């Protein structure tokens, strides 16, 4: 193999690794941020009837999506309500998980995107997705399990490409 071929292969693998880091990083960061999303205070305006605000309280409402710490919900309520009844998930563990999940996704996404301890970040992200998979197995959400499986495959590919990791702040670990 000529040095030009090797160089172009390395470039491809390097860019491949970078693409995976960006994808997985953004995926985790934005998923974490969305856990802080909620509806902003609706702006209600009274419907006009005969040129005056109606007396019944009928309104036309508009509201914008906003992000706030007070909106935080780690495990979405419908899923939480199902998990709480699962004998294999103790309530205290679920409550801890509920608090930790959002920040964990954001931190791991950032470390991956910035290239800080990339391999450990990928491994920990894999553990987070595995824990989510465990919950979905209990409530028989097969589509979600398959979707998380795709994430795990991407993480494994990124770990396999780790030696081609460039543009990283901390290459150790």
């Amino acid at each position: 193999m000529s040095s030009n071929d090797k160089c172009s292969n390395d470039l491809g693998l390097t860019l491949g690794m970078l693409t995976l880091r960006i994808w997985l990083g953004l995926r985790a960061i934005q998923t974490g941020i969305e856990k802080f999303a909620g509806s902003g205070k609706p702006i209600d305006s009274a419907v006009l009837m005969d040129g005056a605000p109606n007396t019944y309280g009928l309104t036309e409402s508009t509201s914008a999506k906003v992000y706030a710490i007070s909106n935080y919900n780690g495990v979405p309520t419908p899923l939480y309500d199902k998990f709480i009844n699962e004998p294999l998930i103790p309530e205290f563990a679920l409550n801890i998980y509920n608090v930790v999940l959002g920040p964990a996704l954001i931190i791991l996404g950032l470390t991956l995107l910035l290239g800080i301890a990339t391999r450990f970040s990928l491994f920990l992200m894999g553990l987070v997705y595995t824990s989510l998979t465990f919950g979905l197995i209990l409530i028989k959400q097969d589509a979600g399990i398959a979707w998380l499986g795709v994430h795990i495959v991407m993480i494994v590919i990124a770990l396999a490409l780790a030696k081609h990791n460039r543009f990283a702040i901390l290459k150790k670990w």
Partner: protein
Amino acid sequence: MDFELPRLSRREFLSKSSIGAGLVLGTPSILKAKAPGATGDDIRVGFIGCGKQHEVLFNAMVNITGIRYVAACDIMKARVGRTFSAIKSRFDYNINRYLSAEEMLEKEDLDAVFVSTPDFWHAPHTVMALEAGCHVYCEKMMSNTIEGARSMVAAMDRTGKLCQIGHQRRSNPRYQFVLNELIQKENVCGQIINLNGQWNRALSSSQDIVSKPSILPEAEILREYGFNAGADHTLNLEELRHRFLNWRFYTDLSGGPISDLGAHQIDIFNWFLGTQPKSVMASGGRSYFKDREHFDNVMCIFEYETPLGSARAFYQVLTTTSSGGGYYETFMGTDGTIEMSEREAYTNIYKESGADSTKWDELVRRGLLKKESAGVAAGGTDAIASYESAPPDKYALPGGLSKQPHTPHVENFYGAIRGVTKLTCDARHALESEAPIYWVNPAANSHEIINFTEEHLHT
């Protein structure tokens, strides 16, 4: 000379000062509530029953000011704990927790109590709370028996306290607007001849409720609270807990789907028509859930006499199929049809092709209706022109409700306590509307038409 100032309890002061203020100033603005934690004119609230429906009510009232949550009780400790935590996290103060309603009512100084226990406990809890001097908001169905419901009306009359029943559509501005403006004032339907209502619920939403055994009450407690009522053998712990979680399936604990779901909508039939039905015929079956005591599907027809002529109302409640438009109440008249639902998505208004277009255009111009689309014929080679009616134009309500569906009803209750408004659904009016519903299951069981008399419907 010695003299003594008249002594008023805080509860009396709240009621009398509010009424006085309302009379003098004619505006509720002076009744502006103090911040949570204040003790002046805050309404002191307790909860009896902390299950799912309690959560719906609590979530509907968390933004209402001037309320001090004081205590909650439920025979299931975990549920009371959840209510305690919800109030603590939202308002940053503690409430007192009880496992017994009697103890809570005895120890606490409450102005108002919300009852959201299983149907067969509605009447005992409501009567108990009224007699303890509290105003009561009780979930519908008033009771699993008409005698229980009548005892609630009697207790309301005897104590002079307010008793609001949870037919929340009665306070919903959308429903009030449709009845007052579109049906009564503008007569958009013309003569209402047929009514049609339904609540179609999917099989997946009708399954048994399950929970962690470790958080459920023990057999002794469940027996004490009557969850073994009507059983033909001594129930074991598993059977008792099934009844505790799934009381809606048992005839001695609830009225079944026709009262769980149908009560809301049959109430709207009676409210909008302003009268009680003359008769009911019904059919029901345990067609899928064969081991449940109640029918899983019920269809019934009520006959009415209105000032404009006779009318018939068909109602069905299905627990095995969700398609067909979900849940709604339809008023079909000679000029138009109003398909109402608590869900805006299921609400539609149609103009008959023969109705006066000028009148409907004028309603749109004035802002009372929105025009959605002109009627479109279905067409197709299978259409036979002589069989077809011209398609109706489609309209919509001009606005919606920017709160949770239960919020206006709870606001109405609090407003009535403060003396600034009247209850929209006190126990007597609720029972006038609910009374015919108690006869649907008997009509379905007997396969006979029940012609209502004073005996059937009196409150």
